């Protein structure tokens, strides 16, 4: 029997009166994915995550986490699931360690025995005795990861984990997420930072005004926008003539000291051999793809962000 899928949502809807914050969202996060949930601020990412974690009730639709329904199974549906939405929060008058002990007491299993280990992972052991009220934003984010890791999760839901961090903090947080993913933890990462998603995720869903406008592999998304190649040689004129004569190559044009063209990978491979045989020195042959940012803006164009702003 195959392992249950970490996250499956179908037709997920959340309405607040007239306002539709999440509109028929279908999500599937497979085991081992680092899944980027991407959208502008106010697109419905956090509301979706809240529904996944059972914090708010969907108006319609279904959610299954490892084949369990949070609405029916309650906290049991969160077995193996951890994370935070809208930033981790703690009791400011308790120390970091005491907060973790409290959360371990709210967990089943042996969370308490992992407190030292997770403090070590997030490099907070030296500050564990200090009150959380005195922690910096970055330390709270790291304590949030520690709190999640206490549960020895198979699925980690992180909502904007690098928001508010300085560049070094962002790098550390991304390294941590990458390391956790390499250890086999499935990660659902909500973010509006395209670079972050591009750096960490293998699959993405892009949400716009509460609706999913793309879900699938990041590589495929980027490939759909492949617009051609740029060629720079020692003799661009001869290279251009050769491109025009080469089967499978089209759209040949001279552009800014380069030759641009379209073609599939097979035709481009044949072209590179032909260039060699013609003794035309190639200094660069670069595929031209739209950046994730361009794709994102294309998919979310016209976003106003009103939906979730009103909810918040």
């Amino acid at each position, binding site marked *: 029997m195959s392992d249950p899928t970490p996250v499956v949502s179908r037709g997920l809807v959340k309405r607040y009166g007239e306002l539709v914050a999440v509109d028929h969202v279908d999500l599937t996060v497979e085991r081992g994915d680092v899944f980027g949930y991407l959208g502008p601020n106010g697109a419905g990412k956090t509301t979706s995550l809240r529904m996944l974690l059972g914090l*708010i009730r969907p108006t319609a639709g279904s959610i299954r986490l490892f084949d369990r329904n949070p609405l029916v199974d309650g906290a049991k549906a969160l077995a193996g699931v951890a994370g935070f939405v809208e930033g981790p929060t703690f009791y400011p008058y308790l120390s970091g360690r005491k907060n973790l002990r409290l959360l371990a*007491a709210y967990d089943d299993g042996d969370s308490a025995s992992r407190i030292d280990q997770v403090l070590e992972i997030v490099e907070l052991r030296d500050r564990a005795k200090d009150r959380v009220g005195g922690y910096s934003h970055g330390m709270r984010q790291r304590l949030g990861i520690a709190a999640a890791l206490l549960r020895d999760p198979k699925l980690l839901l992180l909502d904007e984990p690098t928001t508010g961090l300085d560049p070094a903090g962002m790098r550390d947080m991304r390294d941590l997420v990458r390391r956790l993913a390499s250890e086999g933890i499935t990660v659902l990462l909500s973010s509006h930072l395209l670079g972050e998603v591009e750096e960490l995720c293998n699959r993405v869903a892009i949400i716009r005004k509460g609706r999913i406008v793309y879900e699938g592999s990041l590589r495929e998304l980027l490939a759909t926008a492949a617009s051609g190649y740029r060629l720079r040689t020692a003799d661009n004129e001869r290279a251009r003539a050769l491109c025009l004569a080469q089967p499978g190559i089209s759209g040949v044009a001279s552009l800014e000291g380069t030759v641009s063209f379209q073609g599939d990978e097979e035709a481009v491979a044949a072209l590179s051999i032909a260039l060699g045989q013609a003794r035309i020195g190639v200094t660069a042959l670069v595929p031209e793809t739209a950046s994730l940012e361009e794709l994102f803006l294309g998919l979310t164009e016209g976003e106003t962000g009103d939906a979730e702003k009103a909810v918040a």
Partner: protein
Amino acid sequence: MIAAAGRVYEWELVKLLAQKRTYLGLVSAMLVPVVFVVVLLIQAGGPSQVPLGRYIRETGLATPFVVLFFMSIWGLPLITALVAGDIVAAESHNATLKTILTRSRERGEIFAGKVLAALTYTLVVVFAMGIVGLLAGSIAWGFHPLTSLSGTKVSAAHGFGLLLASLAVYSLALAGVAAFGLLLSTVTRNSAASVVGTLMFALLMQLLAVLPGTESIRPYLLGTQFEAWHGFLRTPADWAPVFRAFWVCALYLALPLIAAYLVFLRRDVAGD
């Protein structure tokens, strides 16, 4: 379920012990009888118009009863409201509800832990006030037999038993205030509104209990139950107000708690 709620209860107490407002209420409750005794020691006269007031200097046993009479009106309801009105709302204020609701405990278990913690605090405050009052009074005037409201003497040991029973019955009525505070705390998600609202509720209940024209409903008002412990101070004891306090307070306890539980169970946790 019970073990899980027990763990939540244990940590709710840890949280209470880490907050200043907990000590503010507790220390106030213990300080009032001490101040009361000190004032009576340096001044002549006394609170002869209140139950046992005229015997205040005969025995230290009278002190906690007299202080309870004064504190029962708004002091203890305020202290109770400080914690009961805050215990759920503070989670909204700190946005920690989402933190604890995404662990392994069911909402019902978390709510039960909070209710138990709030009621424990209520009980501790009342008994702390009573015991400190007894100690302060006994140091000032000794631990002697007590003159009951019927004018008969009861032994000091018997008087001590009556004190414990009186504190317990008053705690029951105060638990009704705590339950209302928990309801407001759950519904409003705002500590200040819950604390003020709870105090207003307690005062309104007592006001209704003395207003003319409310005679028919008076036995069933929470304010009336605040004085049920007076029944213990008669010889023989008048059990009628005590028994009525049991079931009336049970209703004032159960109804708000059921309502709060249902709200807590179904509420959307967005931004808190």
